[in-house]
């Protein structure tokens, strides 16, 4: 089975993730969409590793998972903080940080 189909799925998942980030306003969903994008990349990495017959891609995938875990920890922490301070849970409303 060629690697193309895996990549196709990966690209599809990536686009869904990116589209989600662009259209959704809830920080929680945006984090989820980010996870989708990261995992799309993981899928591509693992697919390439299989196609080339070495383990480098898999190593990368594991590292990406670690990074994703960290990112989620920070992101969820932020969301909890937002919730506690009774701020709107909406990224369009949270825009004080501007030039």
């Amino acid at each position, binding site marked *: 089975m060629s690697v193309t189909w895996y990549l196709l799925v990966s690209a599809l998942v990536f686009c869904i993730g*990116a589209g989600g*980030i*662009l*259209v959704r*306003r809830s920080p929680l969903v*945006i984090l989820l969409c980010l996870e989708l994008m990261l995992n799309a990349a993981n899928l591509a990495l693992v697919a390439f590793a299989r196609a080339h017959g070495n383990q480098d891609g898999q190593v990368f995938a594991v590292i990406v998972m670690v990074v994703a875990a960290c990112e989620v920890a920070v992101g969820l922490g932020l969301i909890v903080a937002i919730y506690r301070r009774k701020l709107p849970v909406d*990224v*369009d409303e*949270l*825009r*004080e*940080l*501007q*030039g």
Partner: protein
Amino acid sequence: MIDTYAWLILAFPLAGAITIGLTWRALPWRVHGLIGTAAIAAAFASSVLALLELQALPHDERQVLVVGWDYAKSVGVDAQMSLLLDPLSIFMCLVVTGVSTLIHLYSTAYMASDRGYTRFFAYLNFFVFSMLLLVLAGNFLLLIVGWAFVGAASYLLISFWYRRETATRAGIKAFVINVVGDVGLVLGTYFIFKHVGTLDFLKTFERVDEAFTTNQADLVAGCILILVGAFAKSAQVPFHTWLPDAMEGPTPVSALIHAATMVTAGVYLIARMHPLFEHAPIAADVGAIVGVVTLLVAATIAMVVTDLKRVIAYSTMSQIGYMIMGVSSAAYAAGLFHLLTHAFFKALLFMAAGSVIAAMAGMQNLDKMGGFRKAMPFTYGCMVVGGLALAGVPPFSGLFSKDEIITLQFERGGYHAVLGVLAYVGSFLTAVYTFRMIFRAFHNEPVPEAAELEEGHLAHHETPSNPATGEEEDSEVGFPGPDHHIAEREAPMKIAMGVLAVGAIGLGVLQIPHVTSVIHTFLEPAFAESELYEELEPTASAEWIGLLVGALIGIAGVALAYRLWVQDREAPARIRAKLAGLHRFLSAKWYFDEGIDTVIVRPFAWFGRFGRNTFERLIVNGLIMGGTSAAVRGGSAAVRAIQSGFLRAYAALLVLGLAGLVLYFLIAAR
């Protein structure tokens, strides 16, 4: 040994200046005058010892380069702390230190009541140090340093009475014109250095032959720029306007700097650079012609000036015109001989004038003077001796030196003969204006000040005032002191003037044509490579005829002055009425000040205003500063606008950017 003496000549005045400067509070003021005088006397003694050492050397080894240390030795530049001891520099050292010693001695009495006494001697010693550095310098670099130092010293001393506005203005004027000369000298040095590749005088003169062809453009340019330096320092047309104004300084300063020594630096410079000028006859011709023009311009102005010191100042310009003409036309020994005699009689005239001014309680106007002959016999005697030497009446020294220059002009032939004739015209004018000054100040009925002085009361004004403007002054520091000192009452002044008077009478014996030629023989080693030096040897009859003509012209001038200002005293007014236009022209000093103002000062001032108001405001502030800051401000506003804080917009940008990148690679991969 000669090395040590060379350094000592420089060290004494410098040590004097520093000692006086540092101990101004610690020692009583009288001591500072003594330190100053003693330092210069010691320098004179060192010069004499150096002279003896030099004369002991064989004839063709009398050019000793004393190298202290290498100042900077890098690619192609050989800057050394080197002094050149040869007959020329020793000659100048003797003149400078000798006359300076006497003038210091005179000043100890003359400046006694001035509140700036200590400062005066510190400046004066500094000046002598600078002048000696100038004449002893063994390379262009030190020459320029000394050249600039004497300019600075001159500025300090002209503006000595620094609360007098006329004095500070005169100082600034002198300094600015001198700096123009400095720039000329530096640029001229560059032109020479470019071709010979060394700053050392002796090496430069050795290489002139190979480096330049006769009248090569660069050499002529270099020599003319050096002449600009010489003209500015020696007050030659058109750089002369500072010298009459420099008379704002104390009278000993006028005697020392603006008559005997500094203003003759230009003459020394041309004589020192003679191998260059002999290879660039065009530049030498410029020097000779400017010398003649100056001597005539200055002599004509001196005919109408009514300020006692300014008459002598114009006469100084005129006499330096003779010297410049002399050294520019290869009459080196004659020019330098005139420098020597002039230093004596002109310093003497200034000292006598200072005595008269003191008797007038600071007034300098000839119109208000008269009849001082009985009240001040000693001053009168000195003034007449100086005047006769200046006018060229035998057997006083001025005749021998001045007429040797003129005789050599005829010997050179060609257009130099015309210069010689013009110089005789100048001689006649010299005799007339000198004795106009003396007769007006000393003869006829005594003015009140003179009559009082005959009874033993020295004039004393209750409220001192500026003689030029009449502004009221006090007598604190920054203005002249309260008391005045005349030669008749002060032994140091009398001694100084006495010695100078003896020199003014007797120095002619050094160089009587075909009898003695001390100066010519002595200076010969310094001009060894000059072909013209030996060639220009007029016959005895030519020299004696020259002397006779000069003497007759001098006597005729004195006689005319006697007729006009003693016998027929209505005549000057009649002549002035008849020649009103000429009188106005001469009183305005040939409109040189106005001309320079129109041609140089005003365009520059206009350019400065344009720079400040237009260029600075529009181009610099508006375009360069304003334009840059507007660009930065606009750019940052655009970048700031992107930072909207709108998270999804950032994401969109990111995605678009990524998409664009991917698209680019896809297309590029094809």
